[in-house]
């Protein structure tokens, strides 16, 4: 505990030295304007997350605050070790923050629930003993969201949306990685959750499939305007997919900036390139040490 606290306060003072209070105030100011227009869908306030390994108490994020509004494509961007996946797991309800709180529609998040569906990076998130179709209907039926024919119809609707209706009765192991991720996205969307949580869902795909999946996700969003909280370590992906981008610094994760992305479909424009450079400069402003656990993000 002591170790984590000193580490946290040290980095906090570094932060204060590097970036004067002005941008932070600006951030808070923006949150206030959101509050005027309506309550944010997801309210993350001063969240510090610590977890224990065998030998250490690790502070993954330090006093992270942000708001996600209805219909946002909110991207959390940062290098590995900035606690972005940990943050997403806390929103998912798998971890409890040591400080601060996370509220969804005003309700405090204490445990996992079907109002926040996670889409993971790993391909084994599809249950291998069920067909694609059963995988999509499973959460609908098991949570009592829909029953019988209604559940089947909803599942088929979303499988058509991700263009996998032909594979409804295949088992997951017969699909390619990109198809598996599309099923996972369909399964998440079929639940029509308040917010879809995506933990680097395209990171394990090859570059060509990845680009196509990004385009498909955007066209799905054009259709249904779902709210998504998306974690990535790729700057181009953040600019392309996000409507708003939260930048985290590593060890522990702290908010560096919260900025608007370029308008939809302009991710090849000069503004996008400039934004990319800006983000790059912000992320690499201070020397980043090599993260001891490359997997932890």
């Amino acid at each position: 505990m002591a170790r984590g606290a000193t580490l946290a306060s040290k980095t906090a003072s570094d932060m204060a030295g590097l970036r004067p209070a002005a941008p932070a105030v600006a951030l808070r100011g923006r949150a206030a304007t959101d509050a005027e227009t309506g309550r944010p869908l997801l309210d993350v306030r001063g969240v510090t997350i610590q977890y224990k390994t065998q030998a250490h108490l690790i502070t993954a994020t330090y006093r992270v605050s942000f708001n996600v509004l209805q219909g946002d494509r909110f991207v959390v961007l940062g290098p590995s070790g900035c606690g972005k996946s940990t943050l997403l797991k806390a929103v998912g309800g798998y971890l409890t923050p040591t400080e601060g709180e996370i509220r969804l529609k005003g309700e405090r998040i204490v445990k996992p629930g079907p109002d926040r569906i996670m889409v993971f990076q790993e391909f084994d998130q599809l249950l291998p003993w069920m067909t694609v179709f059963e995988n999509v209907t499973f959460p609908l039926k098991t949570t009592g969201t829909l029953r019988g024919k209604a559940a089947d119809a909803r599942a088929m609707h979303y499988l058509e949306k991700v263009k996998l209706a032909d594979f409804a009765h295949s088992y997951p192991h017969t699909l390619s990685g990109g198809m598996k991720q599309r099923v996972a996205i369909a399964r998440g969307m079929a639940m029509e959750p308040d917010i879809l949580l995506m933990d680097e869902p395209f990171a394990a795909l090859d570059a060509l499939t990845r680009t196509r999946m990004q385009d498909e996700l955007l066209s799905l969003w054009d259709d249904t305007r779902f709210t998504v909280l998306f974690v990535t370590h790729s700057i181009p992906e953040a600019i392309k997919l996000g409507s708003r981008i939260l930048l985290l610094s590593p060890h522990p994760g702290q908010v560096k900036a919260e900025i608007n992305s370029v308008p939809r479909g302009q991710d090849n424009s000069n503004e996008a390139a400039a934004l990319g450079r800006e983000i790059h400069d912000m992320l690499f402003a201070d020397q980043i040490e090599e993260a001891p656990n490359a997997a932890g993000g």
Partner: protein
Amino acid sequence: MLQAAERPNIYCETLGPDQFGIIEKPLTLAEQIYNKVWLRKIAILVVLALGWEIYGRWLDNPLLVPPFSATMRALIADVANGTIPRRALSSIEVLLIGFATGTVLAGLLTVFAISSRIGTDFLDTMTAMFNPLPAIALLPLALIWFGLGIGSLVFVLVHSVMWAVSLNMLAGFRGVSATARMVGRNYNLSGLRFVARILIPAAFPSILAGLKIGWAFAWRTLIAAELVFGVSSGQGGLGWYIFESKNQLEIPDVFAGLLTIILIGLAVENVVFRFIETRTVQRWGMQT
């Protein structure tokens, strides 16, 4: 020498799939035959039987090793007059009772083990103590506790099945991926529903391996126990049949008894477990 800058860009026309003569070609008949698992296995059995026949004839001592043909004659005769089917049924009945009880107990123990730390420690300690203990060593005690009869046999069978199956089940449950667990919790599954809908199917390859081992252990224990005291409820099982035949120096009958056990084992492995495997773990792509 060609300079790097002088290399032109090259563009090619590719052929469509209809331009190719053969993309798929059927395998030859011999290759197709060799690809059948059951044919390869039968070939192995035929070679073994042939070796046995040749050795038996060369040895020419039916009291030590009767040839395969003599064993088959004894087997067919005793199957025809109903002795072996009756004995086998009697063994299988006891076996199924013991196997089912042991498996259910193992399931309960493992669910208890994964739901609490003390449960895990309990199962770890119990399996460490009792798994190496041969079930047959408990038979004298069982005979005192439960008397001559089916009770004692079931007791030793449960002992032989339970620890092996629960070890495999626990290993399977522990090996369920963190992602699958998180997916289950995302859908509000908890307690027994979580075990039934996520853990058991995800751990099914290990559970099935445990059941196979448990089945084999149960057979061994049962035959050994029957050899020791045999008769229960008026008629013995296969172990008793082997013991009787040996006493009467009907060695081909002894071999016929052993062969029956082997045949039942082969049938259960290749029909029952094979059926379960193709319907579950293979269809799910959890086993190749």
